[in-house]
């Protein structure tokens, strides 16, 4: 064995013995994996729901109302959910960014496939009526209920929300001065 090679082993072992190099504990990787999983799942749920809801809203109230409807969606949407998703994913990936087989995957392709998958899933949810199931039993029950109550599917134009926006001075494109 050459001198350099012997030195590599000796130097690494010396650092280990002296405590300069320490193994990361197992829980570090578990926390990272759990956070990544939570982030991924919550981002998927949020995105699918957003797409399905947006499509539903535009279909129900097209034309000049679409913009207002979108604004209403934005104001009703639980922004904590995507923020949680991003934060969990960020911390999770950072924690588990170890040298395993998932390291250095081509994340551009991963993101493209994820966006396409979410978009397709959103359309499928909308077309198959899974929205209704979510409305009654799913994870977005509260948000959907709020959307329907405030958004005015039952009350036509969403008078309550409309009035609130007008009183706050928000200019709506379809209303004459």
């Amino acid at each position: 064995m050459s001198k350099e090679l012997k030195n590599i082993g000796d130097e690494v072992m010396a650092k280990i013995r002296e405590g300069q190099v320490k193994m990361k504990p197992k829980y570090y990787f578990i926390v990272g994996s759990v956070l990544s999983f939570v982030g991924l799942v919550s981002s998927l749920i949020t995105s699918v729901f957003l797409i399905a809801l947006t499509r539903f809203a535009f279909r129900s109230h097209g034309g000049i109302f679409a913009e207002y409807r979108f604004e209403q969606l934005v104001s009703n949407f639980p922004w904590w959910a995507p923020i949680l998703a991003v934060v969990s994913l960020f911390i999770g990936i950072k924690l588990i960014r170890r040298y395993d087989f998932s390291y250095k995957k081509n994340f551009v392709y991963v993101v493209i496939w994820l966006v396409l998958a979410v978009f397709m899933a959103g359309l499928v949810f909308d077309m198959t009526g899974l929205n209704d199931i979510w409305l009654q039993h799913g994870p977005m029950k509260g948000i959907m209920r709020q959307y329907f109550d405030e958004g005015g599917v039952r009350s036509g134009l969403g008078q309550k929300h409309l009035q609130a926006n007008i009183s706050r001075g928000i200019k709506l494109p379809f209303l004459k001065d």
Partner: protein
Amino acid sequence: MQNDIEKLSDEAIVERVRKSDQEFYSVIMKRYQDRLMRYAGGLIKDKDKATDIVQSSFIKAFINLNGFDTNKKFSSWIYRIVHNETMNLIDKNQKEAVFPDGFDVESGEDIEKDFEKKEIKEKIEKCLADMPVLYSEPLSLYYLDEKSYEEISDILQIPMGTVATRISRAKLLMKKLCQKN
């Protein structure tokens, strides 16, 4: 005792290092350092840098040892770490020649008959230095480190079909380079 240790699989040794005795890590290093030095040296073409790469790879592997899944092959994992370390250094230094645009070699031709594995192994060592990393790396892993297509696919994070294509093209390229030399 020594024989018993030698019989242990890499994954079993990793398990021991993690659970009871960190000294066993030297066994792992002993098993891999020659091969990894040759692998890193072939990529970076600088002995001192290859030594640094192998050393830092062993350190990173030790730090992240609890993240290694013992159901997978340790060999692929450690090669992957060395690959990443080398590529990071190459990116940093930007010394390695980029593969020329538009370069392509006709593929699909089965030249396995022309080259026996042993003969190729000897020629590879001579011609590898003149080859772009894109092709020299899978070729070196296949013939010199005797990795399977699946292992190379894990190490380089490319599909097995791409591994096969690159090796096939590398052989054609090598034929040209070796004949020229």
